[in-house]
């Protein structure tokens, strides 16, 4: 019997992002489609950044998780368009990021508050961070540096 698509979404929501394991691949918004085509399951994935080194690991993790749930015929499709945007992060994902110490993306282009103390006196240290999706900021209230999830 084929697993229902909602069930598969739930399974994928258990797969952590390899670089920010506190959120799942579904939270990250990179799973663009799950559908059965005959006896083959097609999962459509979009990359965050074109050079993101996690892309191949992500595909591997998806395959590993689905095989563990008994999916035998699997087709992973890369989809470039429309390009990934941080608007696709789920609300749960945004909350989990902030609790983890990463300020979630804001349309204004900078963090709303310090993920450590909630302070609003913030300054940018660098437009880039430890992974392609992050920038480095600092809180002038508690003086701690923190990562900001860039808005793209």
């Amino acid at each position, binding site marked *: 019997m084929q697993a229902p698509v909602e069930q598969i979404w739930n399974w994928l929501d258990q797969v952590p992002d390899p670089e920010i394991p506190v959120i799942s691949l579904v939270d990250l918004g990179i799973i663009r489609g799950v559908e059965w085509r005959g006896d083959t399951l097609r999962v459509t994935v979009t*990359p965050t*950044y*074109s*050079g*993101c*080194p996690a892309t191949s690991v992500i595909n591997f993790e998806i395959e590993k998780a689905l095989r563990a749930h008994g999916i035998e015929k699997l087709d992973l499709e890369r989809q*470039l*368009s*429309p*390009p990934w945007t941080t608007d696709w992060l789920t609300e749960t994902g945004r909350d989990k990021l902030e609790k983890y110490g990463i300020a979630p993306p804001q349309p204004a282009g900078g963090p709303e508050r310090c993920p450590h103390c909630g302070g609003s006196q913030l300054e940018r*240290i*660098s*437009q*880039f*961070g*430890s992974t*392609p999706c992050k920038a*480095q900021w600092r809180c002038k209230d508690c003086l701690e540096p923190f990562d900001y999830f*860039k808005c*793209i």
Partner: protein
Amino acid sequence: MATKDHSADLFEFLLRMGDNTLILGHRVSEWCGHAPVLEEDIALANTALDLIGQTQLWLGLAGEVEGQGRSADDLAFLRDAWDFRNVLLVELPNGDFGQTLMRQFLFDAWQELMLDALKGSSDARVAEIAAKAAKEVAYHVERSGDTVIGLGDGTEESHARMQAALDYLYPYVGEMFESDAVDAAMAQAGIAPDPASLRDAYDAKLAAVMGEATLSTPDDRFTHNGGRTGRMHTEHLGHILTSMQWLQRAYPGASW
């Protein structure tokens, strides 16, 4: 009317796009572990990573269009200098940090305009890659432009170095806006803009940034060229390839 087959010209165009990002990405990656401060090191490494990621998309499509079964890796690692189609600007040595960021800005400003135009390409595959890359390049140009301004309008020392970098690099800018038969074919098919058509917007961007950076752009429009047509490269390209292709040359087919 029969549709003209553009695949040879399209292949050439895609090599130009992919070789620019490949060679510049490799050049910028040479800074990894050597930048003046940690934040800049990370920023340079991330920029290089974006460029290499874009290379995989452009050269991947080039291999597909060519139809000879060559992958992006085959094109990157198994061609020799005369088969590369990047502009000379991107193969020039890094020089100091200022020169690297000046070269980055001169390229980013062009790439931003080019990708913006390619988003409307009649070839959906080209438009998709451009839309993806444009988001990344928006960050690159913001950072390189800010750095050029910060260092140009900085100390006497940093100003002098940035002016020297601009004087050295500017004679390589014109090549990005040259057009030949490949460009004409791409423009006619609605696949890519005539590069010359991007020059006015580029000049305006350059004037704004250099003005704020208190730097003077040379008047002379003379340009070195030959890279994007494959007529000739500088001596520097061979040295880049020696290091970049070493592993695949020494151990053909190696993978991990």
